Structure formats: structure tokens, C-alpha cells
């Protein structure tokens, strides 16, 4: 669906490239979690794959079309909810009436349903809402466009605690096999139950690119008392109850994916995890 090949990009003239020889493929019908440290280029990658930035080398193809051309057929099939945005001073209803024509699968019914989940209605004016409320309204609109690709940058930033669970419910209820959602975030606990696929990046490298099922099949996430030995663990992190460990899943045991632990583990033991999840 989305193919990034040999991508190179930098913001400045010097050799400090955000991406260099970076390649990644995104398949349809999954919720992708894009994780990485600050400054590793997560937002830049989202801009590059929606055509908002132009790579200096390489290409980003969406359904075979180069996204940097910003063709209507491509743009009408993708939507981005950035971390910070600026919406015009008008009601959601008016905004939808102006812009929905650009999206062939837009559903007004879906928009009102989505807004209702957050206790909003379409008559409210964007600018009269708080930043968090605006984000909710914009996400509702984004999901109602029913584009095949939806990209979200830090969607849970600025949302209150009940809204975070509503957000998860919203994504789950709007997800179909034809859609792909890419969520870039630091707040992994807010979305870990949503993700079908995890991508951890570090500059030019993809440190991890695997489905949640695959990760859980290969790795075992466990909490151990401090007295229990951690020999054979791939990664150990002290926790309130003792140690959080990642072990090789030798006996096909079931465990809940601990995204935070996995992220720290992958960063600390790159080669081991890369080898194991190859």
C-alpha cells in the first residue's frame, strides 16, 4: 500500500540527515504504531509519507503513485491529523460542507456519530473549543473521511483521561480491513491495545518492524519478583513489583504486549531484538 524506498531527507545543508537510505513498507488493514526517541524523525516521516515534505533522494509510493506529486487521487485517499494544527474559524458542519466533497467516501452520519462519542455536536465552532476538544473534533472528521490511510501524530496529547479511552473506542469502531492507520506517539500506554503492528525507528534504521502477534509469539513479557533470577532474559527493567522482563517465548506462552518495555529493550539491545524478530 505504502512503500518507502531508499529515502534520504535533511532539513539543513550539513550532513546531518534525518533519514538516509531508509526503507519501509506499510500494508493495508492494520493500525501501525510508529515509535522512536525524540528527534528521530517520526513527524518528519509522517510528513514525507503524506507528501508534505519532499525527499532529497528515494521515493514514497502510495498505491503506486509518488506522494510528492500531491495528486488529487492520492490526497483524497489519505488524511493526516498533525500534533498541532490550525483550523478555520467556522463550525464543524460548515467545515465538513466545504471540504467533504474532496473525499469520495466521506460519511456525514459517521461524523455525527464520532462527535457524539466525545459529547460534541457539529454546530460548535472550532475556535470556541479548547485545544484538546479541537483535536477530538478534527479526529472525528478525519475518521469520517474514510480515507484508506489515516496518519495521526501524537493523537492522545492534550486529551483528558476519559477521552483517551474514547479515542481507543473511536479508532476501533472506525477501523475496517480497507483502512490503515499510522499512529506516531510517545504515549504508548494510551494506544498499546490498539496496535496491530509496531515500527520502531531510529534515524535511518528501522529497529523493529513486526506485527503485535508476531512479537507476542516470539517474546514473552513478564513481571517477576526481585528474588527471581533473570538469566536468559533478553531485557530486564526494574518495576514496582520487582522486574519487568522480556524473555524468548520458547513454549508458545501467551502474554500481553508491554510496549514500553519492548521499546526500551529494542533501544538497549538492538542487535538481539533485530535478530530475534527478523
Amino acid at each position: 500500500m505504502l512503500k518507502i524506498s531508499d529515502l534520504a531527507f535533511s532539513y539543513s545543508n550539513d550532513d546531518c540527515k534525518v533519514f538516509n537510505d531508509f526503507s519501509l513498507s506499510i500494508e493495508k488493514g492494520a493500525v501501525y504504531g510508529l515509535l522512536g526517541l525524540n528527534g528521530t524523525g517520526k513527524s518528519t516521516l509522517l510528513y514525507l509519507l503524506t507528501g508534505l515534505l519532499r525527499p532529497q533522494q528515494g521515493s514514497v509510493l502510495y498505491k503506486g503513485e509518488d506522494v510528492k506529486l500531491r495528486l488529487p487521487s492520492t490526497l483524497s485517499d489519505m488524511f493526516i491529523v498533525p500534533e498541532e494544527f490550525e483550523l478555520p474559524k467556522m463550525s464543524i458542519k460548515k467545515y465538513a460542507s466545504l471540504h467533504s466533497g474532496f473525499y469520495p467516501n466521506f460519511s456525514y452520519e459517521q461524523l455525527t456519530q464520532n462527535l457524539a462519542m466525545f459529547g460534541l455536536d457539529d454546530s460548535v465552532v472550532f475556535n470556541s473549543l479548547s485545544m484538546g476538544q479541537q483535536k477530538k473534533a478534527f479526529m472525528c472528521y478525519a475518521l469520517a473521511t474514510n480515507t484508506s490511510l489515516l496518519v495521526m501524530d501524537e493523537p492522545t496529547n492534550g486529551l483528558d483521561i476519559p477521552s483517551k479511552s474514547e479515542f481507543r473506542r473511536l479508532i476501533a469502531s472506525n477501523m475496517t480491513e480497507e483502512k490503515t492507520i499510522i499512529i506516531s506517539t510517545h504515549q504508548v500506554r494510551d494506544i498499546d491495545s490498539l496496535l496491530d503492528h509496531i515500527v520502531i525507528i531510529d534515524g535511518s534504521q528501522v529497529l523493529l518492524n513486526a506485527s503485535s502477534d508476531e512479537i507476542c509469539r516470539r517474546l514473552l513479557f513478564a513481571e517477576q519478583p526481585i528474588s527471581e533470577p533473570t538469566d536468559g532474559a533478553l531485557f530486564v527493567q526494574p518495576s514496582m513489583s520487582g522486574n519487568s522482563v522480556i524473555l524468548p517465548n520458547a513454549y508458545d506462552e501467551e502474554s500481553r504486549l508491554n510496549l514500553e518495555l519492548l521499546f526500551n529493550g529494542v533501544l538497549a539491545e538492538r542487535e538481539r531484538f533485530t535478530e530475534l524478530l527478523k
Partner: protein
Amino acid sequence: MNTINNKFSFARLGAVLKCDLVEHRWSNIAAFFILFAAFLASQLANMNSIIGTGLRHSIQPDQYMPSLAANFVPFFYGVLSLALMCAAADMCGVPLKTKGRGLNYLMMPATNMEKFVARALVNTILLIVMAFAALLLADLVRMLFVPLFEVKEFYGFTLPRILAEFGETFSSAYRTGGEVWGPTVDGTVRVIGFSAYYGAVNVTTMVAAFLFAHSLFILGGCIWRKAAIIKIWITQIVVTSAVVWIFVKLEPYVLPWLGDVLTSLFETEQQAGMTLMNIAIPVLLALTALNWWLGYRLFSRKQVVAPQHHRGGKHLHQLFPSRK
């Protein structure tokens, strides 16, 4: 709306135009009122001045309104030209001023050409329509002030006279034409007649020069997102100064040579001037087209965040990117 078609679509252009107009309605309304205020202030000052002059020099009251229109014409076209230049410099400024705004604009599912044409229409045709509407409103409001001046002859619209004056300038230029200078029996060089051809060349050169100047602002507006008008003016001053400096330095060598060449080719200076203008017209029009094309190239390559190597005037990279 057909969003699958990637070729130019008038339906999509209409939708982009509608979004542009609705989302930036407050800027457009502000521009309208600035034009209105300028026109009204000028007309009121003109009325006051005409009455003063009339009293001193016995201008007949029936000449008040023609005088008002005649005085106002250069101001109107001056303000309109300035507004057109400022608006042209705002090609990217309005939709890409902030990252958030630019993001929405760049992600709008329309071709770059549709977005560019929509911006160009707003910044040219809409502005001209707005200027005439502002003038009409200024006329109406001015008439409310007429009782203060106690001159009933000031009741009337200047708009038709301004349009007539504009038409007259062009038609007279083509009809009666420009002055033809030539040697007379007493040996002096004077006006010996009028030529419609000369008039047409003069007017066309002026129009071509205006279009070229406007296209420079379009180009500048596509290069710079912020404070484009100031940057364009500074660039123009720098370039003009450089050209003048070069000309002054070369003048002792070039002018005598050029004079010899022109004298050998043409009988009169006017013929030489006409020929140069005939050359200048297609050159200016070609450069105008080039500026619009370069402007479109830059516009279609705008990014949500301008990388450093695209800033500081290093825009050739955007125009001719490497095809690695």
C-alpha cells in the same frame, strides 16, 4: 466531485476557490475596507480641494464632478496597482503562513495547478472586482457628505467616469495615436502628426511593462512566505541599483556605439524608439510568462516546512531538483 481524475478539473477549482474565499473571508473583507477607506478619504479631500480651487479660480460648478473624477483617476489606478502588487506578493503568504495552515492547504485534494489558479484568481480578478465595489460604496458614502459641502453638483457616481476615462485612455491612444516627430521645412524637429500605430505601440508597451512588474511580484510571492512584499522591494532596489551602476560604468563605451548603430539604422530617434519598443513588447511578455511559470514551479514544490537549503534565496534547487 471527481477526485480520481488527476487532470485539471473546473469542479475542483471551484471547490478550492470556495474554500479559499470562505476560510480567508476576514482578510478579504479587511482588504475591501482598506480600499474603501482610501477611496473615500481621497474623494472627500478632492471635493474639498475642488471647492477651494473653484472659489479661487472660478471653476464652473458643472465642472466639479468631471474635475473630481479626473483628479481621482490616477489615485484609483495607483491604489489598484499597488493592491495588485501586494496581493501578488501574498500568493503563498496567506495559505502557507503557518505550519498548521499550510498543512491543511497542501493536503487539500486538488492539483497544484488548481490551487495556483485559485490563488491567482483571488489575487487578481477578485481584487479588481473588490476595488470597483469599494469605489461604488465610497461613492455612495461620499454622497452622504455632500450636504456638508453645500454643492449639489457633487451628487453623482465617479465609477462610470473612471471606467470611461480608462476606456478613453486606451481608445484615444489607438484612435488618435501617438505623436509623430519629424523634420519640418524650417529644419527643426517637431510633432508633424499622429499615428495610431505609434499610440498602440506606446500603450501596449505600458501594459506589457505593468504585466511584467506584476509577474515579478507573483514570482516573489511564490518564493517567500513571510514579508514577501518587503523582500521583493528590497530585491528590486538592489537589482535596479546594480543595473544603474553597471550602466553608468559602461555608459562612456556603450552609448556612443549604440548611438552610431541606431543612427545608421534609423532616420529619426522616434523610429529607433518604436523599434526598440516593438522588441521590448514580446520580450516583456515572454519574461512575464516565464515569471508565472517559475512561480507555479515554486508553488507546486512548496513543503509544509521549508528545509534550510530552500531558504535564503537558494530556490533554484526547488525549481530544478535532482532526479536521483
